[in-house]
């Protein structure tokens, strides 16, 4: 039964894609509904699968040997992933309604864009589902690659200048990341002769260069997770992508990087080597640096979705730090991971609803304005930890850290939450500035509302192990909630201070310009060298050809000598005979 459901979860997206193709070729133009109920249902079997129970599958014929599992980690992960995919799909139906109408009127360009999206959206989802259940390297890498490359269509959808730049940044970094992951997997799997993620974890612990393997894999997955330095695609791609695409990109796809870390790093392993622990420290520092730097840079962004992208970087920085704790202090991990999963799930839904919210504020429904803006603010407040699931998830990671006496990290995370609060208030402020009346339809706000509610109630529906998450005790509430007002205050003060500078903003994608400059500068000498080699090659070809010509000339002249020889054959023979005879005679004389 569960196997049947698994097959359905993986094959259903293909069916959806097939339907989209059928539409494009067979259905009349005016009746093409790219976002039909069938399309919306692409993620439903996967969602159902997450709630059915734990299971395990082994398939020898599959690639290098398939091993899939629904366990205590992959079930909640699949649940929040599939839920957000389903909601974002419904939102997309509303979001693209105008474009769909355009396509039905016969706009070729809109048809092309929508068909592309309708085809690659389920494929991206499929990759995402596969990588969650995969326990063997090949399936995991397959899911990761499918998701990464198919998501290109989601980013580039509008085809504008910004979208193309964002998609380019996304793709370049993705290829870089894939290369790093491949290197890391080959190294660790080759050293231990394994094909499973479990083997990779063991290999990293036992191998001499385990820390370097871990570094390669972490950087590779870090591209997705937006590790500082490799995060530049996020603020470039998010503002350009359509809102539902941003929602899944920032909500669940960057979590794939996080899941990658959890899958390959030997977290909670008692005997990690010194180098590996050292690497954990670096990761911790990188995570915290991202958490703070993204907050400081992000509040000055103009586009609300760019602000939200920086918020994602900041949040992922916190999660990076928490994962790093699994290396630095292995004994804390068994207590910490349910909290981290809840954190990730809550962030997924909250960030998803915030991104969907940007499309709501651009097409405000005719509701009482305070209600709309309160609803738009809710997931942000929750993200900062002041209400609902945000509070529970903050406590979920804080409690184990308290228990193991990592007070300084808790303090730092609290201050990072201040940054979160500042970012979400800045995003809301930008949304307010760029608001538009009217135009949002039922699917658009319906999906958004459900996402907001799901975000606030995350612990209630997430299938985590029983008893792993508790409500924070009342006396701790102040300690969890204080960052929110402080963050809002900071944002307000920052806005007042920088008011004289209106009109000037920091560019989104901070380091992208710098990277482009460096690569350009490095390419100059390489190009010069290439030209030099090209000239050298053509020069040597010409020299060789000349030499050949001269040689052939000589040979031809020899050939013309042949006729002379033939003409005088008898005389020459005679002379040769006389010469030989003379030689023989001289020999005989001696």
């Amino acid at each position, binding site marked *: 039964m569960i196997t049947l459901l698994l097959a359905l979860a993986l094959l259903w997206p293909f069916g959806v894609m097939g339907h989209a193709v059928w539409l494009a070729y067979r259905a009349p133009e005016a009746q093409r509904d790219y976002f039909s109920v069938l399309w919306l249902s692409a993620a439903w079997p996967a969602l159902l699968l997450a709630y059915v129970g734990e299971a395990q599958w082994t398939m020898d014929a599959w690639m290098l040997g398939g091993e899939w599992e629904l366990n205590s980690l992959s079930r909640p992960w699949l649940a929040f992933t599939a839920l957000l995919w389903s909601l974002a799909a419904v939102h997309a139906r509303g979001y693209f309604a105008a474009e769909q109408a355009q396509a039905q009127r016969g706009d070729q360009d809109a048809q092309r864009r929508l068909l592309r999206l309708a085809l690659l959206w389920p494929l991206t989802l499929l990759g995402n589902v596969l990588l969650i259940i995969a326990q063997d390297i090949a399936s995991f890498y*397959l899911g990761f690659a499918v998701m990464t490359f198919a998501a290109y269509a989601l980013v580039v959808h509008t085809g504008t200048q910004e979208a193309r730049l964002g998609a380019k940044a996304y793709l370049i970094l993705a290829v870089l990341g894939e290369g790093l992951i491949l290197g890391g997997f080959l190294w660790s799997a080759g050293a231990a002769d394994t094909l499973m993620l479990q083997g990779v974890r063991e290999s990293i612990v036992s191998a001499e260069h385990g820390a370097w393997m871990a570094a390669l894999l972490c950087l590779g997955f870090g591209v997705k997770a937006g590790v500082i330095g490799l995060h530049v695609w996020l603020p470039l791609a998010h503002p350009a992508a359509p809102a539902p695409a941003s929602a899944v990109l920032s909500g669940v796809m960057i979590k794939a990087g996080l899941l990658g870390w959890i899958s390959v790093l030997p977290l909670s392993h008692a005997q990690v080597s010194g180098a590996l622990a050292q690497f954990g420290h670096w990761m911790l520092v990188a995570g915290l640096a991202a958490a703070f730097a993204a907050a400081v840079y992000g509040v000055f962004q103009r586009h609300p979705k760019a602000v939200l992208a920086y918020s994602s970087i900041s949040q992922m920085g916190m999660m990076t730090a928490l994962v790093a704790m699994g290396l630095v202090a292995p004994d804390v991990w068994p207590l910490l991971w349910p909290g981290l999963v809840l954190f990730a799930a809550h962030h997924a839904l909250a960030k998803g609803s915030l991104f969907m919210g940007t499309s709501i504020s651009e097409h405000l429904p005719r509701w009482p304005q305070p209600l709309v803006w309160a609803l738009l603010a809710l997931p942000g407040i929750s993200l900062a930890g002041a209400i609902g699931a945000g509070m529970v998830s903050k406590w979920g990671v804080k409690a184990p850290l308290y228990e193991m006496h990592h007070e300084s990290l808790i303090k730092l995370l609290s201050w990072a939450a201040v940054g979160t609060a500042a970012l979400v208030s800045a995003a809301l402020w930008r949304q307010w500035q760029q608001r538009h009346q009217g135009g949002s339809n039922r699917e658009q706000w319906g999906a958004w509302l459900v996402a907001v509610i799901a975000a606030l109630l995350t612990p209630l529906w997430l299938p985590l192990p029983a008893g792993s998450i508790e409500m924070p005790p009342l006396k701790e509430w102040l300690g969890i909630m204080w960052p929110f007002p402080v963050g809002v205050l900071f944002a307000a003060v920052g806005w007042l201070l920088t008011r004289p500078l209106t009109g000037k903003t920091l560019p989104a994608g901070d380091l992208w310009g710098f990277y482009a400059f460096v690569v350009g500068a490095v390419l100059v000498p390489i190009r010069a060298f290439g030209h030099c080699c090209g000239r050298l090659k053509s020069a040597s070809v010409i020299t060789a050809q000349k030499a050949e010509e001269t040689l052939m000339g000589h040979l031809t002249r020899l050939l013309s000598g042949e006729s002379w020889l033939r003409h005088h054959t008898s005389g020459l023979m005679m002379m040769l005979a006389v010469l030989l005879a003379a030689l023989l005679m001289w020999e005989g004389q001696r």
Partner: protein
Amino acid sequence: MNAAWLPLTALATSLLVAVTIFALPEEARRLRTTINIGAAVVKIILVTLMVRRVAAGHEDIFSFQVIGGLDFVLRIDALGVMFAGLSSLLWLCTTIYAIGYLEGSANRKRFFGFFSLCVASTIGIALADNLFTFLIFYEMLTLSTYPLVVHRGTEQALNAGRVYLRYTLSAGVVLLLGAVLLNNLTGDQSFSSEEGLGDYLNDHRGLLTLIFILLVSGLAVKAAMVPLHGWLPRAMVAPAPVSALLHAVAVVKAGAFGILRVVYDLYGIELSVELGVITGLAVAASITIIYGSLRAIAQQELKPLLAFSTVSQVSYVILGIGIFGPFGTVGALAHLLHQGLMKVTLFFCAGNYAEELGIHRIDEMDGAGKRMPLTSIAFTIGALGMIGLPPVAGFITKWYLGVGAIQAEMYWVVAVLVASSTLNAMYFLPILHRLWFRPGPSHGKGSWPHEQRLGRLETHGWLLWPMVFTALISLGAGLFAGLPYSPLDWAARVASGEYLP
């Protein structure tokens, strides 16, 4: 029980077809097509039979003495069957494709005659059991491909043919020199002898190394290793099915297969390691891989780009030979098949674009995905496989090569693999982007260079279905690599024969 008829029949099917086609008049199109396809199917059946016999542990040998101490021997072994299988499968696909491609053009009799001769040579190469027999078919291959390369008869084609002959014939001389030296040293040396040349190591170390270098550099010309690759991009003037055959199975693969034979069966892997030559092989292959990829990035036209991609990809096989250990060998052998399948798909696609739409340059490919969806999907599969992304077969080989390199402690090979994957992505992804993401003539922007409506579907059915078939096989070889009799499974079988006594 020795079924001596089996290798002989396999060889004779293609040879007889060649003779028959030459005897038929030019106009007998239908009869020629029937004979061609019928023979190709018979060949596949024979190879299936061979596979079953090898799997059951039989060794079928056909031999006769030419002169004293020099035998003509055909033998069916696992490695040979691998190459023969690839050759016969792709012969069928390419023949069907070529019939569609050359429809209505002149000199088809000559083309198909030499085409069959060329395939007969590859079967001979696959089944040859000693260097002498190998050489005969190897040179026969050179001569039978020349008329195919110059088929169009243009100035450019004749020039390319001249360059091709210069390269391959001089290489043949070098190879012959090596073979003669070896024969002087050891007498007739069978590929199947267990001990290899280990006995001669102590007294003739230098000579053995010299012979190895002569043999491999002679073979490396056909395998298009840098700096001996110059003929390959020029030979791109040939018609698409010829390029497909040349790149996927015939010439380039014959070189790589020859190197496989020399290292594994003639010298033996232990002796090669002892001589220290396989590290040199790995280094040369790495240089070729990177150089080919770099040159491919700079290309403006589709077929030369694919040619440089072949230069790079075939050296994966050589790289796998250079990695000591079962994983490297499995990678090398599997890539022999995987690369053939993927590259033949890519060339079929390039041919389809050229025939249907007149596309030769990369910048003309904008939006072709809408006009020719199946071709473009097949191209995408081939390109992703070349990059080494799962689930296409290329990933499987890359994985085995990488793991083998780690286990042989050649960490730099992993760096080469990753760099080459990235470079491949740099030249294939922009093409995919053009195909699927850019608006082009099919979206009402500009027009195709030379559009024809060849068939009811996106193009002529004879051109379409072989390509779809090879694309599906390349996908299946990756997705279900764990199935028995998959390329990976068979490669593992051969490799275990090499490493386990």
